[in-house]
């Protein structure tokens, strides 16, 4: 069914259009759910390239594709550096377009912080997750589930830092 959506949109709008990119993202999500990360990444890359062309390289609407690409890459050990670059770019786009207090920026920071934690770079993890936590506290209040989502890994990073300092 999602293939059909892509077909219709290509016929109606031509090969490059925002809705065509959305269709590629839909299909990528499906491949990801089917545990086919390589195919999913290809589709996100296509969508990203198309949106970059249509919206320009500074649009915050590129951030979701960057986050999705990074989320796939971060699970593949030799692609984690690429994942980091995607997250960093998403952060730059959202910070510039939406300002330093945006919940979307917090999502990007949280993602990057988790990658730092995963790759055992605890100082960076604590700094980045701390920033995400601060934005989310301000925006949603202390008891929001998103605050808890950042708080857990933030504490893990702090604990790891203390342990390595004690050694």
């Amino acid at each position, binding site marked *: *069914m*999602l293939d*059909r*959506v892509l077909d*219709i*949109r290509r*016929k*109606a*709008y031509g090969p490059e259009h925002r*809705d065509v990119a*959305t*269709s590629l993202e*839909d299909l990528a*999500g*499906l491949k990801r*759910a089917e545990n086919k990360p390589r195919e999913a990444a290809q589709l996100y890359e296509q969508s990203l390239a198309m949106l970059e062309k249509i919206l320009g390289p500074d649009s915050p609407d590129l951030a979701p594709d960057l986050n999705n690409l990074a989320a796939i890459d971060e699970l593949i050990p030799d692609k984690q550096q690429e994942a980091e670059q995607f997250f960093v770019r998403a952060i730059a786009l959202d910070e510039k377009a939406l300002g330093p207090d945006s919940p979307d920026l917090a999502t990007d920071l949280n993602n990057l912080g988790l990658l730092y934690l995963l790759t055992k770079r605890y100082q960076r993890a604590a700094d980045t997750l701390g920033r995400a936590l601060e934005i989310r506290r301000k925006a949603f209040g202390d008891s929001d589930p998103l605050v808890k989502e950042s708080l857990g890994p933030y504490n893990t990073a702090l604990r790891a830092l203390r342990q390595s300092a004690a050694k």
Partner: protein
Amino acid sequence: MRVATHLGALLLLTVPGFADSVEDWAKAENAAAAASKAGRFHQAEQLLQQNESFARTFPPKDARLPRTLLDLAHVYRAEGKYSEALARYERAQRIYSELYGAQSSELAEAFNGEGELYKNLGDYEKAQPLLEKALAMREKLPPEEANLAQSKNDLGEVYSALGQYHKAETLLQDALNLRKSRAPESTEVGQSLIALGIVYEKTSRSGQAEDCYRQAASILGKVLGDDHPDYANAIEHLALVCVARKDF
């Protein structure tokens, strides 16, 4: 009660004596409406631009100028030429307020149009008060003059985008019922079904959402054909909710 002036043809009946210019103006207006309905926006735009220049030569207080401004604004909006559309919505609002006072179906249409424009831009905070004003006005007008369903649908979509799902659901359900009672199968019914489906999905009722999308796909496929982008939107929603339901 004032006669609605939605079409030039009506004006032709109500304002005799301007036969030539009225006829030319009305012809172009009707041709533009037909072009716009068929999705030929560029053609509609050209016709209405000519009519706009033409209507500027009419005496002041002639209701045809704001009519053309409003029709042209709708076309510009559909084409994504938002600043051109905005200027005309605002001008039409000023003229209609002077002509008919603070309440008229035309003024409601102009507010609703500007609200829809901000909705399309994703600026829901700006869309909300405009659509609320239009709806309040249309609720007070005789039902045949007011496109209540459109106002309720648009405002419902905006509340939904702002996360106010309870208010959104009431309005969208009303809009759907009104539209179904006029024509059980139409693009407008399909649009309201999709909007309602989104509210169900956001409020964890994915089964009801799936039903809405399924009905919308079937209606839009029948009315618009299965090559139409609006049909594609419906089956996109349907497919995604099915995937999500399988996952959770």
